């Protein structure tokens, strides 16, 4: 059994591993997909202290190497929950179980989908959640962006330099995005706005060929596009922990700045916790706080 079992190898989880190892505790980090978390997709980070312009990949790699060099252990698997037993916690995955005297949940968030039939199967076949990742594959084609926040507006601006026409589809009449970016929309000739409009269907054979739109009067139409970029927000990746600890109505793990959850010995760190600012620097800070609290908890056993 490890002293500290961390679920999620993003910025919060990897930082927690560093702090727990520095306190000489044994640490296992369980990760579902690959090291680094969400930031891997970002070409350049401009707001992390002392690392202006670092790429998401380099940031993630440095953080992972630092944790590994300090002696953190790693395993791949998707946690499906946890059980308190024998003075510790057991975390099951599809084909194994991991044990920790204390538990840090650092599973972050994932992209919210539209919930349309075929959406999952078409992801990577015309449906995308990341304009900076996939935009280059739509050079000279027509694409649509759905959403009305900062991500949707900046995705539309980014794609306008690559795609032929960018349709920006938003169910409301105005955007809740940075006003400077919204003003830029009007200056891009190839960005067309479809307001008061929802995406209500996907048309595809092998890959996406059009989206079904429902307009203000409830009338539907088909818009031919090669790509649909979905930018309608994030949801906490905490579904596996429902019913096991307190979540807020949106699914975030209820925990204050001390990262303590409703279950003693279980701590929450990073974007999956109730908080105001979801950034790398706050994820790293949570990792430090949660690990320090976990170490104290383990010492008190």
């Amino acid at each position, binding site marked *: 059994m490890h002293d500290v079992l961390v679920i999620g190898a993003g910025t919060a989880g990897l930082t927690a591993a560093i702090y727990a190892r520095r306190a000489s505790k044994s640490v296992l980090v369980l990760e579902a997909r*690959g090291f680094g978390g969400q930031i*891997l*997709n970002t070409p350049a980070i401009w707001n992390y202290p002392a690392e202006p312009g670092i790429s998401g*990949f380099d940031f993630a790699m440095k953080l992972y190497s630092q944790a590994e060099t300090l002696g953190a252990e790693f395993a791949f698997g998707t946690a499906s929950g946890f059980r308190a037993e024998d003075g510790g916690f057991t975390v099951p995955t599809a084909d194994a179980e991991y044990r920790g005297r204390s538990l840090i949940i650092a599973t972050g968030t994932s992209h919210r989908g539209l919930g349309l039939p075929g959406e999952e199967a078409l*992801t*990577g076949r*015309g449906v995308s959640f990341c304009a900076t*990742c*996939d935009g*280059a594959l739509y050079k000279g084609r027509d694409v649509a962006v759905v959403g009305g926040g900062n991500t949707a507006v900046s995705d539309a601006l980014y794609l306008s330099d690559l795609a032929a026409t960018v349709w920006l589809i938003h169910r409301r009449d105005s955007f809740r995005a940075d006003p400077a970016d919204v003003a830029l929309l009007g200056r891009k000739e190839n960005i067309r706005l479809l307001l008061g409009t929802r995406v209500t269907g996907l048309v595809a054979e092998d890959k996406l060929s059009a989206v079904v739109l429902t307009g203000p009067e409830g009338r539907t139409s088909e818009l031919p596009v090669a790509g649909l970029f979905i930018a309608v927000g994030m949801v906490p990746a905490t579904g596996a922990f429902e019913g096991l600890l307190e979540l807020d109505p949106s699914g975030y793990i209820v925990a204050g700045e001390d990262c303590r959850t409703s279950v003693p010995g279980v701590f929450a760190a990073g974007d999956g916790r109730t908080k105001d600012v979801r950034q790398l620097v706050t994820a790293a800070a949570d990792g430090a706080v949660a690990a320090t609290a976990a170490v104290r908890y383990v010492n008190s056993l």
Partner: protein
Amino acid sequence: MSVVKVNSGNFAEEVLGSDRTVLVDFNADWCGPCRMLAPMLEKVAAAHPEAKFAAVNIDDEPELAVRYGISSIPCLIAFRGGSEIRRSVGLIPPDAIAALIKG
């Protein structure tokens, strides 16, 4: 056995004409998840000599990217006897990579 770089010139011979199952990793230098996937792919390749592992840089080989309808990377496509048998998009762990070339 390591991952071999392939291009439109040798794709037919190296991938489609291979007598082993071939897993092709479509990637690009600017793609963070692709770079995180690469060392995991190397490890899976070392553990699975019965299959062949190849990589295509989509910026160098746009024609192959279009031919295989790549619209998101990293994209792993398993080929057997010249046809696609499985496809996976996004960063996935080693077990899931290995599952793409199974039986």
